[in-house]
């Protein structure tokens, strides 16, 4: 802990303070969770039974499509109904310095002094999927604290950064006019996880073409092409059909189309609840969570068993072209599971 920080007497106090509405305590707990600190893990374990109530909305799309501005306006719309909400805005970490410039608040000025909105910026910290490694846990904590709506804004996402579908119940894909033709849209990825598609900056003349291209692609994909939030988990349950992702037009800066977007998000939630898809989604999210932790624990365990020395030896064999990386890894695994065996094949 840095010396400048005023410490709480007990970290148990942080949890109950956050639950009682102390926003500073919540902010500190979020840091603990983001940093993977023991206090954060303990808080999540203790508060887990309170989770599962928030509607988690993912907002994704290319850099410059207008995600942050749209999130800001959407949040104002939600606030107009008197609901509290939290926003988790992810921006990329520089792979070179490890630092990050988190600028999403810049576009959410109107919310900056509203105590019913809690905005937290997160750096991706090297995680590749469009959100940070700890984003799921941060969302879980905000859910536990009692925010009925949590919006997750991804980094400016390309085609394969679809991990937000593992966190959100409703995924909104934001596109802007003039950012590629329909072949771009046909490529796998973001289009397939979108529950709602938004063409932002719809006051621009090219917007109509973008809408037409997206309509064409959507028709082409049919219902089978839409997987929606939760689509990334192994499909142990059949994909629930019956939701056709609507294509909406917004001009976020002009506040146009925002209430229609909120209506569509709520319609999607109603659909999830009435069709039973909500339960499927929750089951998939839960499974993904357990698998993800299993992977983490397993990696740590293996790294410990293999040790730096054997790892370096394996890397050297690969460098000398004596062994391909896949075989080297398999041998390391064998050695880790049977410690007496000679790791050199």
């Amino acid at each position, binding site marked *: 802990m*840095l*010396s*400048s*920080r*005023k410490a709480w007497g007990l970290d148990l106090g942080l949890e109950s303070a956050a639950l009682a509405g102390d*926003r*500073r305590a919540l*902010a*500190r707990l*979020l*840091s603990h969770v983001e*940093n*993977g*600190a023991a206090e954060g893990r303990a808080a999540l374990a203790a508060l887990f039974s309170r989770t599962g109530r928030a509607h988690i909305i993912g907002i994704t799309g290319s850099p410059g499509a207008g995600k942050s501005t749209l999130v800001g306006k959407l949040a104002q719309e939600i606030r107009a109904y008197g609901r509290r909400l939290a926003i988790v805005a992810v921006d990329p*970490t*520089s792979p*070179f*310095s*490890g*630092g*990050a*410039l*988190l*600028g999403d*608040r*810049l576009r959410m*000025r109107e919310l*900056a*002094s509203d*105590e019913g909105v*809690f*905005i*937290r*910026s997160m*750096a991706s*910290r090297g995680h590749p999927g469009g959100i940070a490694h700890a984003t799921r846990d941060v969302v879980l904590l905000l859910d536990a604290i009692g925010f009925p709506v949590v919006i997750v804004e991804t980094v400016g996402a390309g085609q394969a950064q679809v991990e937000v579908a593992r966190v959100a119940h409703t995924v909104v894909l934001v596109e802007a006019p003039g950012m590629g033709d329909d072949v771009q849209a046909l490529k796998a990825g973001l289009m397939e996880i979108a529950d709602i598609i938004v063409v932002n900056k719809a006051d621009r003349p090219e917007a109509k073409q973008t809408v037409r291209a997206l309509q064409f692609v959507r028709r082409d994909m049919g219902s089978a092409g839409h997987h929606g939030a939760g689509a990334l988990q192994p499909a142990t349950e059949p994909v629930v059909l019956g939701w056709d992702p609507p294509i909406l037009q917004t001009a976020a800066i002009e506040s146009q189309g925002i209430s229609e977007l909120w209506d569509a998000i709520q319609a999607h939630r109603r659909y999830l609840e009435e069709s039973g898809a909500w339960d499927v989604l929750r089951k998939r999210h839960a499974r993904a969570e357990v698998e993800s932790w299993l992977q983490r624990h397993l990696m740590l365990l293996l790294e410990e068993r293999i040790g730096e020395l054997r790892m370096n030896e394996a890397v050297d064999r690969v460098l000398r072209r004596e062994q391909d990386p896949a075989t080297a890894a398999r041998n390391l695994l064998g050695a880790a599971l049977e410690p007496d065996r000679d790791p050199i094949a």
Partner: protein
Amino acid sequence: MERKIRVLIAKPGLDGHDRGAKVVARALRDAGMEVIYTGLRQTPVMVAEAALQEDVDLIGLSILSGAHLALVPRIFEELAKRGLETLPVFVGGIIPADDVPVLKQMGVGEVFGPGTSTQDVVAFIKESLGA
């Protein structure tokens, strides 16, 4: 466990020049810090709210409007209301030499004028956080 220095770079007041703030924000990013940049024309409440929600370790204020003697005490006031009175604050911008000791008296850790090397800002931050 990953622990990054989180810094809020804010521009309170009404002047519209954010070049300096952006240069500092970038330098801190390049020094491996996570910089929350809030943009122009922040009110004292907005600055304090951002510091609270983002759980930052330190605040940098860029003020070129000449209103520093009015703005800084109001920001400290809003920080104190939120229990953040011990958060280190530095100021950058056009600050007359006579006002520097006044600001420091108010609780500002350091004042950086035009021509400051960004390395000095980085060094100041690391020093005040004991990092």
